[in-house]
């Protein structure tokens, strides 16, 4: 209920606005611009198109679009841009934020609710920012007797590990932070850190419920790691490479999900368990062990772990897309040129734009599929979970490895096969 103050005068309001703009102008011209000049003077800027970037040149580029394009082009090909913006952390974090919003709205529709509504006027679109601000402003309570170092380090390590996974995933041809030849092994190596972090954090909390939750997380993640790796192995057999980019390119004519549906299913179930999502959210089972290994988290420590969880969700959805749904492959829908007849320097590349578009669409679809079980399933019990992980899924994954091998040795797929 926003109401005007009792002694509200429109004239005063306009007057204060004018005053504000006046002071902003004064401060920007007297302090801001000189500061920018000083920084630009001392920072050695790279030469672009054979010209050394001076502050004067920088400002002339800001007003002339044809001169801006080279500098943007230069920036987006730096290593920093790849790590920090695209396809690195910012892209993943934006998709993760979108995931949280989609999850809340999607789940609300399933449960005959409305979901976030007020923040941001339109369907609560700014709810996430409100939540983030709330988490930042809250006090972080460290339990007495906690192992301070691990308690502070574990949430950061969680986000960093999740971000390390996304560095390995190719989003578009040539757009990958680290194009490793052992990409898929590196992914599983990074995923192997998560149970360790969960256990360390739960132990550092010095509390009973987190400890039980941490042990459950350890059991669960280790039980599902093997079917997880085995299901990815059948893809490696078909593609003949451990490199994720090569695996994507190997699917340019046929997606592997058509040949390896069981493997895709095992991978999907294992990623649900890896992400601790319902029905596999035992480490956070509220009615049994309060909030599991997150019981003692507060403020931004909780926020960081949540961010890490959703970045991890994006990473696993993207990994599923890369392994089974052909990665960036999709029909060309973007035109070759935006402005016909333009001959100058250009950033736009139809193939890359298309690849990014299809990859994002597929990943969002996969994220929705990962969110879906939360609305329809109760939590599973630990003995059933371990039975599922160690027995059923491993058998299924092995069956699929034989399918993959027969496809390769039958000369249907794989290097030099009929369909590749």
């Amino acid at each position, binding site marked *: 209920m926003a109401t005007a103050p009792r002694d509200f005068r429109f004239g005063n309001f306009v007057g204060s606005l004018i005053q504000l703009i006046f002071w902003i102008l004064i401060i920007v011209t007297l302090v801001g611009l000189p500061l920018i000049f000083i920084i630009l003077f001392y920072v050695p800027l790279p030469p672009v198109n054979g010209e050394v970037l001076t502050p004067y040149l920088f400002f002339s580029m800001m007003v002339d679009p044809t001169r801006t394009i080279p500098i943007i082009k230069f920036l987006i090909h730096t290593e920093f841009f790849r790590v920090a913006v695209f396809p690195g952390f910012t892209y993943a974090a934006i998709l993760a934020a979108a995931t949280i919003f989609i999850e809340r709205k999607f789940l609300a529709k399933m*449960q005959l609710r409305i979901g976030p509504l007020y923040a941001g006027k339109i369907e609560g679109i700014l709810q996430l920012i409100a939540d983030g601000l709330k988490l930042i402003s809250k006090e972080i309570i460290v339990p007495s007797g906690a192992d301070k170092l691990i308690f502070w380090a574990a949430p950061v390590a969680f986000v960093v590990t999740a971000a390390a996974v996304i560095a390995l995933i190719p989003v578009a041809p040539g757009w990958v932070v680290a194009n490793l030849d052992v990409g898929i092994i590196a992914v599983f190596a990074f995923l192997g850190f998560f149970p360790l972090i969960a256990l360390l954090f739960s132990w550092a909390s010095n509390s*009973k419920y987190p400890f039980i939750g941490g042990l459950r997380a350890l059991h669960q993640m280790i039980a599902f790691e093997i079917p997880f790796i085995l299901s990815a192995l059948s893809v490696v057999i078909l593609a003949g490479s451990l490199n994720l980019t090569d695996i994507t390119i190997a699917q340019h004519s046929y997606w592997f999900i058509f040949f390896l549906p069981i493997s895709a299913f095992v991978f999907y179930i294992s990623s649900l368990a890896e992400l601790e999502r319902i029905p596999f959210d035992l480490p956070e*089972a509220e*009615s*049994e062990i*309060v909030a599991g290994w997150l019981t003692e988290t507060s403020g931004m420590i909780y926020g960081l772990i949540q961010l890490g969880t959703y970045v991890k969700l994006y990473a696993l959805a993207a990994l599923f897309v890369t392994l089974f749904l052909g990665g960036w492959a999709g029909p060309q829908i973007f035109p070759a040129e935006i402005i016909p007849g333009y001959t100058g320097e250009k950033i736009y590349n139809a193939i890359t734009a298309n690849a990014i578009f299809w990859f994002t669409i597929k990943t969002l679809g996969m994220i929705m599929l990962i969110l879906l079980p939360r609305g329809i399933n*109760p*939590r599973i019990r*630990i003995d059933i979970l371990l039975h599922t992980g160690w027995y059923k899924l491993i058998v299924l994954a092995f069956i699929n490895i034989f399918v993959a091998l027969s496809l390769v040795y039958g000369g249907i797929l794989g290097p030099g096969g009929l369909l590749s």
Partner: protein
Amino acid sequence: MENEQRIDETISRGLEIVKEAEEDRLMTLSVGPQHPGSGHFRFTIKVDGDYIVYCDPDPGYVHRGEEKMCEYRNFIQNIPHLERPVIHDSTNITYSYSLAVEELANIQVPLRGQYIRALASELNRQVYTLYWLGIYGIFLGHSTMFMWPIGDRELFIDLLEALTGARVTHAFNIPGGVRNDMPDGFEERCLRQVAYFEKRLAEYEDIFYNNPLFRQRTEGVGILTKDDAIKLGVTGSVLRASGIPFDVRKAEPYDVYNEIDFKIQYMKTGDSYARSTVPFLDMKESCHIIRELLDKMPKSGEVRAKLQPNPKGPAGESYKRVESGRGALGYYIVSDGTPKPYRVKLSVGSFRNMLALPFLLIGSKLADMPSIYWSLNYWPVEADR
């Protein structure tokens, strides 16, 4: 295994394990009162790995002295505070009180009043059971099963609000009948709502009761055999889930229930699945009862007997019980001839069902704790009174 043992043996075996265990082997967990899975109630459990070896229920956090409060108020004044223990089943908890006072003061309730009472009681049973089912859903991590019943409960609350004027604490049943007659068009609204609700119940069955994960978690968990159920003295849906078709509405029909034709819903397995399904079947049966009550109800007439301002009866005692959402709910009232009761004893189903908790928990897994605990149809505030 543990269900074949006798009750005393199970509990003493748990105590022995606790006594003999090495230091630091058992972990003591306090479930409640600030635990999200307990309510206003605490039970201490000791776990050996994933198995519960010891359980000590500790009720009393919301003891308000309802019985003592009754002695300082007259028979009518007692109504509003007596429904506080179970505000979402308030019509049933005042129902047996009204019956007991009527027997004591020899008041005859008009027939239409009796029917409206039974109708309000059945509507309130739906409200209570839906609330219970919602909590059961979220206890098992099924968030949709939390939202759906709580949403549908709202519709019954609206009905009861139209009937009584209040959303949850109705104070509708009073000695001598009900406070007021039904509003115009209430019958059609009620029938429409029941028809809609029966469709929803089928959806509940699809998403929750037939869900393989739910069945895996509850079937064969916390089995309470017929003999143990009798020995422990459990009541209501817990008793019926153990294969004993006992319902106060059939066993000791009060008011108009002997004119209503309905079946007692019971199951034979006595596990968590049966205990969680019996209230659901009760809701289905309750829909039929509501239809039948509306059908057989006299279309006009008094709903409330004329009473003197401070009703009092001769010195004496009375005991009456009704079937509430949690089982038999009885009042034993002693009067010394004054307008205030000399002694009121409230016998509630929750407390009886809680007695089965340590017996069922010992030997079960920690993950089964919420499904056993809440399937006992226990409401901590009512047990504390």
